[in-house]
């Protein structure tokens, strides 16, 4: 609805979760959200997705953890995090105070751990949803074992679905032959939405020292380099499932975000772009709004999924 000032309506729905706009921060690239408060009011975001949480605090991988690649970067952070207890105790009240819509990204080394983390978060009233990371390539137990085939993903999703009443988003790995069937597996197992893509497994080496660039040898590729792959997979997932699809991968600008919305994404997440420009998310929100004004569209809904083939 265009209000008096002619401002288009960016409201976006991810199942039962209503977002004031379609732009969320991607897990692992936004800390616990609070780190951004010097830059802007984080309640302006569609949602904040926090760094992946595990049952216990996790130290993460030894350095070197990041390496730059052409228009991208590899990371092997190894899911360093403060654990779900400290998150609930120290972070949740501050996110709630900040008025942020926020989502907890979770992972476990076992299905039981996933369930336990989900259960622990179920009672957190201000938490909007749980995003199940079934696709971290950087820890042996980080979900990739579950996420790289439809059967594994289905089992995990079903169990976590039963463990929590919170809206459940399942984050998919792009390291698969057929993203459509993986997305369908998540849908069939009760996911409220699928989020994709997580990083693509990659590797860097130094030809002089003859050593890998990352202590973990392989890592996850993110950034503009992967945008074409992400966009294709989001498009395929949108065709494969009826639940909402949240698009991520290489989004740097409002145009990039609009591309994902155009192929059918319900909302988007912005990851690596936050590193170069901490204001990336809010600039993207403003850019989407300006685009809709130029295109004379009152609702983002009038634009979403209107790709002309």
């Amino acid at each position, binding site marked *: 609805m265009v209000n008096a000032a002619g401002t288009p309506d960016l409201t976006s729905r991810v199942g039962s979760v209503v977002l004031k706009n379609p732009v969320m921060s991607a897990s*692992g*690239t936004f800390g616990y959200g609070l780190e951004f408060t010097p830059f802007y009011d984080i309640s302006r975001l569609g949602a904040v997705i926090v760094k992946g949480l595990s049952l216990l605090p996790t130290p993460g991988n030894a350095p070197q953890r*990041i390496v730059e690649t*052409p228009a991208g*970067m590899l990371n092997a952070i190894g899911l360093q995090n403060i654990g779900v207890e400290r998150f609930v105790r120290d972070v949740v009240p501050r996110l709630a105070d900040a008025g942020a819509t926020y989502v907890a990204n979770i992972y476990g080394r076992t299905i039981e751990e996933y369930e336990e983390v989900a259960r622990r978060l179920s009672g957190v009233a201000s938490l909007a949803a749980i995003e199940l990371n079934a696709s971290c390539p950087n820890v042996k137990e980080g979900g990739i074992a579950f996420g790289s085939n439809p059967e594994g993903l289905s089992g995990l999703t079903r169990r976590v679905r039963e463990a929590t009443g919170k809206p459940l988003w399942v984050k998919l790995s792009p390291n698969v032959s057929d993203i459509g069937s993986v997305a369908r597996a998540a849908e069939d197992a009760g996911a409220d939405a699928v989020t994709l893509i997580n990083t693509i497994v990659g590797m860097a080496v130094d030809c002089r020292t003859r050593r890998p660039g990352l202590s973990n040898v392989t890592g996850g590729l993110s*950034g*503009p380099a992967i945008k074409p792959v992400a966009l294709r997979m989001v498009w395929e997932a949108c065709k494969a499932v009826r639940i909402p699809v949240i698009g991520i991968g290489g989004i740097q600008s409002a145009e990039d975000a609009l591309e994902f919305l155009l192929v059918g994404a319900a909302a988007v997440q912005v990851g690596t772009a*936050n590193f170069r420009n901490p204001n990336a998310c809010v600039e993207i929100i403003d850019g989407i709004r300006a685009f809709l004004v130029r295109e004379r569209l009152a609702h983002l809904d009038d634009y979403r999924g209107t790709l002309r083939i």
Partner: protein
Amino acid sequence: MPFRRPRFVNGRILHNGGNGIFYRMEVSIPDRIEFLPGQFAMVSGWPGNDPLLPRPLAIFRAGGARGKGTVEFVYKVVGRGTALLSGLHGGDPLQITLPLGNGFDLGREDRIWWLVGGGVGFSTVFPAAVVLEEQRAAFEVFLGARSRDQLPPREWVPGGGTPGRAHLCTDDGTAGFFGRVTDAVRERMDRLKATERARLSILACGPREMLREIAELAVPLEVPVQASLENHMACGFGVCWGCVTAVRDGEKTAYRRVCKEGPVFDAREVVW
């Protein structure tokens, strides 16, 4: 009002020039900043996404007035990002997030300060000299370089490089002390009276190897060392966990973010 909390600003280059080894760049920014010596900025100024990540540079100087700030960086061309920076001209835009990290703690009174810079590490410790000069604190500067031409221009050195206060060291002996800066520090330490040593604090920035040696030298003598680390960074403000260093956490080791809990660490904490 000057800002101390980090901000992302669009700057514009005022000057950018160098002697082929070191470059100095002055940038106008929308507002004046206040920073602590040792704090840094994340800088990117090239079009396109390759390279993708901003580069961390110590804040060398800041000035200007309300609504019209300036900031200066000193850098060395070591790879693609710094090469791109060196190709920028006055008038070109520059994106900067600043000020970031924890600077040096210069609060302790009546201390003797040694500022140790290896390579371009001087750009991190010189701003501390400016503050110490204002506080009329006693300090000496130790600078290490491979050879004469790799030393900073004399006019950048606090106190103009007065012998006795500025110890210049070159690996090849082409200027100053013939040897590594750590050797110079060790020699000077040996000549120090116990009463002086008790008042000594070291601020250091340079290659990790150099920092480790300084730590090994000073820590057993109970001389506090504040070491500024130069790890690779993606974000620079604590949200990616990419820049960590191992530190002692009781019995265990833990990973701390260099950009957030650092870049200045108590040398005793770091697992070198």
